[in-house]
């Protein structure tokens, strides 16, 4: 048996074992509640914003909109204001380098007459800031691809490890208080076996982090399992 055939056979075994294992993600969600109650009345709105204030902070817009969708689907009593609609409407006060990092600064911004006037039309109750990102934290394996006149083929096996680390901070904008924090960490390994064609088995790390964070936020606002109740209108 030639070395080439052995290598192909080995790749096939890797591919089969990878498919049987599948890409996996581990998610851990922690939360801390700083207020006795997180009330929200029907019709009140929430805005979810990503932190982008320095080179190290670049929360992906896809994560922010994913959490927004999840909260909107889970907490039916609240309405979510899309991030872009909010930042455009309050331009320039929530731009990357100007947005308030502390709630005291938010109070100053909301006391500007034009901002105050616009705010009254929104019935905004909570502002959720998400900071963090998803990064590639490891990779292993090798893959080689060959292009020949009669076609192309890849052989090998690789793994990629991605880590999502996000924290959501919830501000009550009517009482100017931080009311809760939710931290989510998701670690996932993707497998890329290649036997003629690469067959990536990608771990949906960011999507799982979004799901974990979104579920916890829904529990806050819907009052499930935390004993919190939605205030009747």
């Amino acid at each position, binding site marked *: 048996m030639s070395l080439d055939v052995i290598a192909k056979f080995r790749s096939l075994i890797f591919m089969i074992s990878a498919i049987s294992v599948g890409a996996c993600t581990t998610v851990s969600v922690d939360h801390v509640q700083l207020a006795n109650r997180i009330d929200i009345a029907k019709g009140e709105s929430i805005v979810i914003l990503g932190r*982008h204030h320095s*080179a190290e902070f*670049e929360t*992906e817009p*896809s994560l922010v909109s994913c959490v927004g969708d999840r909260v909107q689907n889970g907490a039916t009593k609240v309405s979510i204001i899309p991030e872009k609609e909010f930042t*455009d*409407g*309050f*331009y*320039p*006060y929530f*731009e*990357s*380098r*100007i947005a308030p990092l502390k709630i005291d600064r938010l*109070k*100053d911004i909301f*006391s*500007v*007459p*034009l*901002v*105050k006037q*616009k705010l009254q039309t929104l019935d905004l109750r909570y502002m959720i800031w998400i900071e963090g*990102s998803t*990064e590639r934290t490891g990779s292993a394996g090798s893959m080689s691809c060959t292009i020949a006149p009669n076609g192309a083929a890849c052989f090998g096996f690789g793994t990629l490890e991605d880590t999502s680390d996000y924290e959501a901070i919830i501000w009550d904008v009517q009482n100017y208080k931080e009311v809760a924090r939710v931290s989510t960490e998701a670690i996932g390994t993707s497998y890329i076996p290649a036997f003629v064609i690469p067959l990536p088995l990608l771990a949906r790390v960011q999507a799982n982090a979004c799901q974990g964070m979104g579920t916890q936020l829904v529990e806050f606002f819907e009052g499930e399992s935390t004993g919190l109740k939605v205030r009747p209108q």
Partner: protein
Amino acid sequence: MLLSACASNVVVNGDIPKPLMQQLPLTAKLNFSEEFLNYTYVEQDKKRVIKSLDFGQAQVELFRVVFGSAFRLSEGNTTASDIEITPKVLSIQYSAPRETALNIYEVFVKYRITISDANQQKLADWVIKGYGKTPTAFLKGADAAFNAATNVALRDVGAQISIGLPLQASIKALTLAKSFNRDGVSTLPTTSPTSFALPSTASEAEVKAARVKALKAALKGAIRAEGQE
């Protein structure tokens, strides 16, 4: 990988919202040079990610929207104006993930904004730096990423102008001078930039005291600026 591997010509589509700011009682004229109107950064290094970055139209839109919110804009050469504003691009820099090993595209842009009065006397010379970044996204090419990052940088410039302009000493002094009516009483509303930082709960006396303090500071700044000239 294939999408980001090719050097490209990027045309930036402006996306600047109207800023939330009180319009000042001044008429302004925007002076855009031919170079500014058609500004395109051309990359000399052939190994870099982009060949050119055309954001002339986007930056003109930025200055029209922002200064149009701050002042009444005078159209053409016939209308008189209180001030003239001339922006100029001083520099532009960018970086791509393959150059920095970070998974973000970055754009830095630096402007000089010269503000002069109706007699062409310089009132302010303002250097503003804008920074924008955008993360890499699956199946989105360098063009889309640079377009987004440049827009963020332009929005950053617009944000600094919107917040900083009413606080400029010379603009404050001109606004004050323009606001006096025939009885010598300022018609500036209490929501003018001179009371910008006051909380809504401030009493009448506190508002008055703060206004006097701010106006004094504005006049002092304007006098100092005039002395330096």
